[in-house]
Structure formats: structure tokens, C-alpha cells
């Protein structure tokens, strides 16, 4: 037997490096069958559309030590969605779902802004750090709450997190006292709108969290446990996996991701809006996860696919603005494109379209069925 190499896995290091020409060809063939092939293709197609529609879309320039350009904007505005989607991926991989991420986004932003607005000097770095710590701590706590409801309370994830989805908006309103809190803090502004080492700071944060998630799940055994619990909870329990602990950790991580996203979103506009911050982001995140190839039924998950999925959705949003779809129809347009993307990815749909298009193939199978039936009838 030839030694078997593992298939490329999400978040892991790139498997092949420095390949000769012959293996390059087979690698290309393998890439076409790779589960990330479709999301990649869709993203490239959307980017291509933008290139055609917008002059200088691909141009990236350095202004005052900061990177600017269409691509940078997509990544920058997409960072919160990437984060929320990462957390969502792990939750979905356990067979659950977290509808409360939008509310957690609002709560985290509200708490941070409230704390900063109360500072004597809103530009004090320790003060801002305390606000960030407070907000993220609460976000993790809310995630743990979800996890406990699901893992210990045995409540269906969609219901357990629906509670916080609805109640969380109220909590955010309470924190902001029903107002939009506006702040003026340079250190806080850095999180969502600032630059560091020429790169948007939020992009760096998203990259670090993605790397962290990849490390935890693929370098440590957490990923195996998550996929195992999501794939077959009872078998996992009988193998000695503490499914409850895994679930709570996963929901807590999802809360943390939503919290960071909340900081980014509120930092970007230097204000906290309990009503609208992160509104419907849970749906975009679930879409990103599904487009990225993680099944809602749980089990196998792909962090790289999710990042691609989030970028696709962000690119789509950008494209809608770029091509000037009337604002009242943007949601409809988005829905149509997402439906199309999901259909393209569905093997069942592809099979069906393929069968419809090929009447000969259909006739052949019908005939085969008939032929197979005859001997059975004879023997009966």
C-alpha cells in the first residue's frame, strides 16, 4: 500500500508545497472535486462581476501607510460577519444553531460604549481595555448561558437561543437606556475602523480568531469532539466524550465571536444602537456556514469554507450597492442570489437538473428498471 496522506482540511496548513508538474495536474483535478471548489468559484464569479462593473475594483493603493481598495473594503466590512460565522460554524457542527448572535452583538457594543461614555477621558487606553474586557466577558457568559440551556437543560438549540435572541435586544435597550450612545474614543475607534501595520485592525483580529479557532479544533482534539458529538451524540457519549462540556465551550466561543463582532460594529460608527446593531446577522452567518459547506445537520465542518461563505455574502452586499440595485429591492435581490448559490451547491438539485437535461439517460434507467423487473415477475 502506498502511504496515505490525509485530505486537505480546513484551517490546517496547506498540504502540498513545491510540486512538480505531473502532480500539479492531479492536484488541479483534486481541487475541482474539493468541497471548497464551489464556494471559491462563486466568490471569484462575484468578484469578476465587480471588476466588470466597477472601474479599478482590483486596485489596491497605499495612502498614508494604510491599504485602500475595493477588496480591502470587502474584507474590512466582512470581518464582523466572518467572526460571527466562525462561532456559528462550530455550533452548527454540533448539530445546533445559535440565533442569539445578533443580540449578543448589540449587547457587547452597548456595554462597551456605555462604559466608555462614563469615562472621564474617553481616550484612556486602560479604560477602553476595561470596556472591551467587560463586553467580551458578558458575551462569553451569554454564550455559556445558551450552552447550559442546550447541554444541561436539554432544550432544542433553536428554542434555547431564540430566548436570548428576543430577550437580548431588550437587554441591549436597557443598557443603552433606549438611546443611541455616542462616544468619541480614539482607542476604541481602532477596533473597527483603525489600521495597524498598514492593515485594517479588524481584519487582523478576524485573522487571529480564525487562526485560533483552527488551532483549537484541528491542532487540538476539540474539532474531533465537535464533529463526533454533532455526527452521533449517543455514540460520542458511549465513547467517553463529555458532550456537555463540548457544547458549552462551543456556545461560549460563539458568544465570544459575536461579542468581538459587536465591538467592531459599534467601534466603526462610534456608537451603540441596541435596536439595529447586528440585526439579522445571525441569518447571514447561518447562510455563510451553509454556503461554506457545513451541513445544518451537524458533523463535519469547514472553517475555511465559512470564511469563504462570509466573504461571498459581503461581496454580494457590496456588489448590490455597486451596481445600483434600488434600495427597496436589495433584500429581494440578495435572497435570489443566495437561493441560486445554495441550489448550485445542492448535489440533489444538480442531479435533478442533470437528469432532466439528459432524456436519454432517463430513458435508459427506466428501461433498465423494466428489464430488471422481468425476471422477478417470472420467478414469482
Amino acid at each position, binding site marked *: *500500500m502506498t502511504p*496515505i496522506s*490525509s*485530505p486537505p482540511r480546513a484551517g490546517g496548513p496547506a498540504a502540498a508545497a513545491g510540486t512538480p508538474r505531473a502532480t500539479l495536474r492531479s492536484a488541479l483535478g483534486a481541487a475541482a472535486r474539493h468541497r471548497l471548489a464551489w464556494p471559491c468559484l462563486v466568490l471569484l464569479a462575484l468578484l469578476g462581476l465587480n471588476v466588470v462593473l466597477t472601474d479599478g475594483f482590483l486596485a489596491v493603493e497605499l495612502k498614508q501607510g494604510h491599504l485602500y481598495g475595493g477588496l480591502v473594503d470587502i474584507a474590512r466590512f466582512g470581518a464582523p460577519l466572518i467572526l460571527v460565522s466562525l462561532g456559528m460554524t462550530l455550533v452548527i457542527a454540533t448539530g445546533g444553531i445559535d440565533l442569539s448572535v445578533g443580540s449578543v452583538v448589540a449587547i457587547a457594543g452597548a456595554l462597551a460604549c456605555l462604559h466608555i461614555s462614563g469615562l472621564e477621558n474617553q481616550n484612556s487606553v486602560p479604560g477602553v481595555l476595561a470596556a472591551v474586557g467587560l463586553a467580551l466577558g458578558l458575551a462569553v457568559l451569554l454564550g455559556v448561558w445558551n450552552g447550559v440551556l442546550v447541554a444541561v437543560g436539554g432544550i432544542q438549540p433553536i428554542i434555547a437561543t431564540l430566548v436570548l435572541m428576543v430577550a437580548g435586544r431588550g437587554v441591549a435597550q436597557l443598557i443603552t437606556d433606549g438611546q443611541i450612545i455616542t462616544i468619541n474614543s480614539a482607542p476604541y475607534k481602532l477596533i473597527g475602523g483603525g489600521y495597524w501595520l498598514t492593515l485594517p485592525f479588524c481584519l487582523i483580529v478576524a485573522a487571529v480568531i480564525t487562526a485560533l479557532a483552527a488551532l483549537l479544533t484541528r*491542532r*487540538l*482534539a*476539540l474539532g*474531533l*469532539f465537535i*464533529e*463526533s458529538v454533532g*455526527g*452521533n451524540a*449517543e*455514540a*460520542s*457519549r*458511549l*465513547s*467517553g*466524550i*463529555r458532550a456537555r462540556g*463540548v457544547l458549552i465551550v462551543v456556545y461560549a466561543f460563539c458568544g465570544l465571536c459575536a461579542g468581538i463582532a459587536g465591538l467592531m460594529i459599534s467601534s466603526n460608527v462610534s456608537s451603540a444602537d441596541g435596536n439595529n446593531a447586528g440585526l439579522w446577522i445571525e441569518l447571514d452567518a447561518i447562510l455563510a456556514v451553509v454556503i461554506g459547506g457545513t451541513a445544518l445537520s451537524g*458533523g*463535519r465542518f469547514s472553517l475555511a469554507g465559512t470564511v469563504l461563505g462570509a466573504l461571498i455574502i459581503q461581496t454580494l452586499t457590496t456588489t448590490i450597492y455597486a451596481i445600483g440595485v434600488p434600495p427597496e429591492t436589495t433584500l429581494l435581490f440578495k435572497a435570489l442570489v443566495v437561493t441560486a448559490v445554495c441550489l448550485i451547491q445542492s448535489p440533489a438539485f444538480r442531479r435533478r437538473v442533470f437528469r432532466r437535461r439528459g432524456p436519454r439517460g432517463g430513458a435508459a434507467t427506466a428501461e433498465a428498471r423494466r428489464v430488471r423487473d422481468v425476471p*422477478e415477475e417470472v*420467478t*414469482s
Partner: protein
Amino acid sequence: MTEPEPIVRMRGIGKYFPGVKALDGVDFRLLPGEVHALMGENGAGKSTLIKVLTGVHPADEGEIELAGRPVAFSSPLAAQRAGISTVYQEINLCPNLSVAENIVAGRQRRRFGFIRWREVRRRAAELMARLDVDVDVSAPLAAYSPAVQQMVAIARALDIDARVLVLDEPTSSLDAGEVERLFGVMRRLRDEGIAILFVSHFLDQVYAIADRMTILRDGRLVGEYRTSELSQVELVAKMVGRDIERPAAPARARRRPENGTGNGNGNGRSARPLVEAEGLGRSGAINPFTLTIPEGEVVGLAGLLGSGRTELARLLFGADHADTGTVRVGGETVHLRSPRAAIRHRIAFCPENRRADGLVDDLSVRENIVLAMQAARGWSRPLPRRRQDELVERFISALDIRPADPDRPVRTLSGGNQQKVLLARWLIMEPRLLILDEPTRGIDVGAKAEIERLVAELSAQGMAVLFISAELEEVLRLSHRVGVLRDRTLVARLDNDGSLTTDALMRAIASGAAS
């Protein structure tokens, strides 16, 4: 012949599922005014036959006659309309609806499109009275006991003027008194001329109620008998497929302890007890039992399906909580609160249903093999890849798992190879007690022989094995001693000292006493 004309006659019924012949040329008849038991072990084809009869599955071969006229039901509804009513094992009613609503749901009498509730309640009360059950038909179903709910399910079945009533395991959730009450109703319906097809795993119940029985084995008809003319021992023999008169096969003496290993004071062989269960039990699952599993021995469990074999094993692995009793491992009293706790005491468990409780379908062979070991190490100490490869490759070749590709999803493997993957998961843990629940069911002959050989080797190396199998030959071939289960009770512990035969085992299963 004074027998009435059969209401149902099935001839040469064949049914194929991908890769399996579930039914093969089965003949079956059901007479009006009789209670007819359909007997057979798990997988014998009982439920498939019922499903063919009630229109859930179309038959691939053969013909069905209802009251002398050929029929072919396209759906359960079509069968119902023809007068064949079924009450399934799991009572599928709506507890939040009233008794009356449950009885008539979907068939409400209407006038001008509106449901006539008075008429509905009158009809429901009539039906319940016919069953001699006194309930308020407008009360919610959940207010009543499982037995009454069962009656409601039967009333619902009768509401369509059933001529044939199929009861699939109706007694599994009832206590003794409730069973008696159900039997009273069944007798009355029988006397009214309704043909009742009854499926139960409880032999005593079958003998208490059934007039005749049809026995299936491996999808084939064994025969049709009058209950009064077939003893329980003969019935068990026919169900498991061993002729009672036949002498035990001599070949299996090959692997048996040289001496009898009496309880504790082994003469000749030093069998230190590894796991001792005392009065261990769980209500509704298994009555308190006492069982000792010594090091280096195979303890077999024999009994019909539903006799509590699996339930016993699950208690020893901490998969379910025991209500009573204690367990000692290596002389030390332990609390098996969870599978995790049992694994810490180096107990391993290959469950009966390997797809549902054992393997994680989506994961690869490698991941499935290392799962328990990784779980024991925790999430923060991943098993190094090199060690994984080493272990996985060693066991793939030792157990001859095919294809020998550790990265293939385990669901693509055949049943036998899946079973080996599950075995490998536990063998890398080097357990002291290995519990195997039906490890050879549904796998091909070659893999079966390999697994049997492996069990023998492991016990020779000092591992204790609890071996559960429906196949008595196999239990005898491998076990040093055999525990016999019947109706959720461990009724006998027999030493396999050379004189034990499948006949004796069957007698023990049938009568509940050692011969």
C-alpha cells in the same frame, strides 16, 4: 376440516431490500375469530411481513387475498379502508387531544364541512364501551394510563370496522394487570369474529392469548402451529433454528476451559473475579441480577431479544444508571455513573446497534478508532499523529479491516468491517473487560469467524469478555460460562464445562430454569 375460510391469505410473499432478502416465499393465513401470533427473532421478517400486509411496503413477489379476493394495497390508508387496522408498538396518538379526537382524528363525521362533535363523542363512547373501558371521551388522552391509551389506539383501529387487527408489541409498555385487561379485550374481539395478529417477544403472553402461531426465521416460513400443540422449548428451537433432538456439535469443544470453573473457587484454573455485580438492576429494564465476570474468561449471555441482555450490558458500562445494587471492579466498589467512569475502570462496550450507538458515520476510520482514546485524554492533549498512524495501521492490519484506508468515511465500509473498526476503538484502550453486544449480527461469515477467533485470543491473553449473541451455538462455542436471561431476569448461570448443550440453553430460555 372445520376451519373457517381464512380472512387473510398470503402466498409466496417475497420482499427485497437493497442487499437483503427480507422475506422469501412466505405463506401466511389468518382465520377470522382467532388470535394469531407471529413469532421469530429479530430480523426474521416479522415486521416486514406486517408492513407488506398493511400496505406500508408493496410485496415484490407473491399475492395477498383478503376474504378470498386478491388485493394489493398501495398505502396504509388503502389497507385500512379494506378493513386491516394496525396498532403499532409505539402508541402513535396525540396525548394533548381528547380521547374522542384521537379515535376519530382524520375521519370526523361532518355536515356542511363542519365537524359534528356530538356525533364524534357518541361514536367514541360507543367504541370504548365495546372494549369495556370506562373513560370520559372528552378528557385529554394524557390523563390516562398507557394501558388505556393502548385501548384508545385499538378503539381507533376498530372505528374503521376492522376485520383484521394487527397488534405489534402492544404489551411492551404495560404491567401485568394491564396486560390481562388487554387480553380480555382481545378475547372479546376475537369472539366477535375479528382476526387478530399479535406480535410479542414475551413467550408467556403468546401462550396465554394466541390460538395459533406462525414462525419465521431469516425471512423464511418455518411453519404454522397450534399453540396447544407446540411446547415453549420447541418454539424457541424453531425460532433460533436449532433442532432440539440434534446432539451438540462436537467441534466446539476446541476452546473450552479444561476444568469447570465453579463460582469463585475455580478448581485448576485461577480465575480471579474482575467484575462483580451484586443485585444490580434498573426498573423497567432489567431485574436485579448478580453476575461475576472473571479475568481471562468469556461470559456469554443467552436469551431472546427483549430478555434484558442489552440492558444488563448497559448497566455494566454505565450507559444507563442502575437503581439498585453495586459493582466491584477488581475487588473495589465503583460507581459507574457514566460511560466515562466505566472507561476509566477499563471497561469497553461495543453496542448492539453499531450505526446508532457506536460509530460516527461521517468520521473516518482513523477518527472512529482513536475516538475513545482521545476522549480519555481530553481535548487539550491530542494524540500525536504519528502515534495515531501507528495504532490505526496496526489494528487495520491485525483485524484485517478492508479497505485498509484510514481516511475513508466509516459509513462506506461493510457491516463486518464497521464492527472491526468499533472493536479496534476499544482494543487500543487495552480494556480489562470487553462487552460485546451482538458483535457478529449482520456481518458476513468470514468476518464473523475472525471476530470469534479474536474473542478467544483476547480472553486467552487475560481479558474478560461479556459476549452477547442471539446465536446459541456461538455463545456455547466461545463462553466459559453462560448467563441465561428471560423476561428481563437473569434466570440461570451455567458452566460451560463440556456437558452444556444448545438444548439445555433453549430449555433454560423457555422455562427459566436450568435443566
